[in-house]
């Protein structure tokens, strides 16, 4: 496995290979067919399968609703919402419909579908194209929220999300699309609900998702020079969360820093911080720290957006403080 491709290409390949394998899979959304998606993720699909790629009107509730209905009939829709912020306009369909169908149908049918959405900031597109939406979703029983951090994960997790019988909101961070990494050519899947230990270490645990994994890696390198061995955990599936991996890491290291792109209040760091202090209270050697963005909408001007988004230096600072406590 020495082939290196981008995160976007990895997603595209996952779709092509799964569509090849399973004719129940189709893609639907705005500009996903003829144009191949605004970010090119569905590129080439309509050309190969003109009957399995559907350009829709700007109707996100209909896109998700249609996907729910089709899923219940045994199809496997992969819907694209373009920017994750648009989940706002189809939130009911996701939280009150998709998330509850398996429960309603007592497991006889479910919303076996993927809603792909482009999340996060950094491209100067302001309030409505930059939010980290995972906190909107992670409190809704029945939903699965997947958030890959590398091209390898992008492909493997998208494949398992398509095969999952649960409704998966698949968050693609726009800051990762051009990131390159090694990705096997053959079709493979990665397990859902399982965190990945990106790096082992005995002194301090860093939990980080999506682009924040890059911050965590950089910080771990830097801290290694100071003799601090960080363990990095990337949840991959944000909800339902793999608590065990996190908790047992913190049981070992006694120190936890959570890095999260969205605002601090009620982000995933809130839950992770709480569950750790519940479960391994006695092992904690320092207070849990959260490095996050500021609690504001995302402004447009680069200096403003950069002010709001998490700062790499704050990751280092939080880790050092945890070590010094």
């Amino acid at each position, binding site marked *: 496995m020495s082939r290196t491709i981008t995160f976007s290409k990895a997603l595209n390949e996952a779709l092509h290979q799964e569509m090849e394998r399973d004719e129940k899979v*189709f893609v639907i959304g705005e500009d996903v067919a003829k144009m191949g998606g605004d970010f090119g993720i569905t590129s080439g699909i309509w050309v190969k399968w003109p009957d399995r790629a559907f350009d*829709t*009107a700007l*109707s996100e*509730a*209909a896109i*998700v*609703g*249609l*996907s*729910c*209905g*089709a*899923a*219940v*009939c*045994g*199809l496997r*829709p992969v819907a694209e919402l373009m920017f994750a912020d648009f989940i706002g306009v189809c939130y*009911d*369909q996701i939280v*009150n*419909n998709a998330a509850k169908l*398996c*429960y*309603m*149908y*007592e*497991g*006889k*049918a*479910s919303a*076996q579908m993927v809603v792909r959405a482009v999340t996060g900031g950094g491209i100067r597109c302001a309030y409505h194209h930059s939010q980290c939406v995972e906190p909107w979703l992670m409190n809704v*029983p*029945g939903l*699965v929220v997947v958030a890959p951090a590398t091209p390898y994960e992008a492909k493997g997790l998208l494949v398992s999300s398509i095969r*999952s*019988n*649960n409704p998966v909101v698949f968050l693609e961070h726009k800051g990762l699309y051009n990131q390159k990494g090694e990705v096997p050519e053959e079709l493979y899947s990665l397990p859902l*609900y399982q965190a990945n230990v990106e790096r082992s270490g005995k002194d301090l645990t860093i939990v980080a998702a999506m682009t924040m994994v890059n911050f965590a890696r950089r910080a771990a390198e830097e801290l290694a020079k100071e003799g601090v061995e960080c363990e990095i955990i990337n949840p991959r599936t944000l909800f*339902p969360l793999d608590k065990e991996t996190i908790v047992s890491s913190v049981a070992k290291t006694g120190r936890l820093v959570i890095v999260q792109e969205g605002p601090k209040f009620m982000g995933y760091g809130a839950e992770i911080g709480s569950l750790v202090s519940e479960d391994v209270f006695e092992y904690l050697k320092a207070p849990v720290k959260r490095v996050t963005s500021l609690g504001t909408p995302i402004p447009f001007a680069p200096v403003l957006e950069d002010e709001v988004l998490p700062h790499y230096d704050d990751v280092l600072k939080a880790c050092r403080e945890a070590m010094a406590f």
Partner: protein
Amino acid sequence: MTLSKDQLLQRYEDMVLIRRFEEEVEKYSKKGTIPGFIHLGIGQEATQAGIAASLKETDYKFPDHRGHGIILLSSHPEDRKRVMAEIFGKRTGLNGGRGGSMHVNDLKVRDMGNNAIQGSTVVTALGTAFASVYNHTDDVTAISMGDGTLGEGTCHESMNMAATWKLPILYCLINNHYAISTRYTETHPQSQLAEWAQGYCVPGEVVDGNDIEAVIEATGRAVQRAREGGGPTLLEYMTYRWQGHFSGDPAAYRPAGELESWKEKDPIKRAREKLMDAHGVAESEIQAVHDRVDAEVESYVQFSLESPDPDPAYATAHVYADIEVEGR
């Protein structure tokens, strides 16, 4: 089209079944035996029975919160007691008691379930219709929606997409004149809501929802059209609910005399008169129907009353298709 004597008698029995079912539900709801909110379809039996009779088992049905009648008639006869048991919240209910009146479904007859977010399934219905096309079957999808529900944005997204793609959907707009306390004329600009469909180049038709034959005739035509690839139709069934919005609502918002005038148009009475006057059905034959239905519904009630509560542990089953959530 007019129904034959036997057909009309059958539909008469369907309507009486709905009425008696709802009366018992009302009774046990008022007693407090049935928990939660109950929306009764009394007065709307011709619309409900006519829609149900126009669909085949593999057609997808999305009844609404007032749709016990469609649910009941779509289910297999041996399962009907389980519709009632569901409303009672019993273990033997069609969904093990976890859904109740607003969430009964029966996938084996493609009753996709009703729902308590108005307008939500109007877009889900796109998906079952889409699946028919994708899978090259001729199953149509029938979605029930009230006059009030037409206010929701999902109605537009659904109609726009169904009209563009010519999906096999029947929009069954059941106009019973009120959304809770609000008359449809206060919240919609059209004098007949069917006009709305014209904006999408979709046929919209007003139907006498208290005339079982008119309902079957219009619905049958629309079903046929959809089955043959002609796309969606909107049917506006004009009818009236005799009870308040939910069982217990005094419905003080109705002008004096309105209910009475609609009771004159009782769909059951009308069918009975037609049976007796036009088809020469004897009083005794009618009585036999009522006796049969009474006994039938009584058996549902007994079954529901005697059924055990669900096992509390069932509360955590099936949240996900593959993983368990923590119980107590």
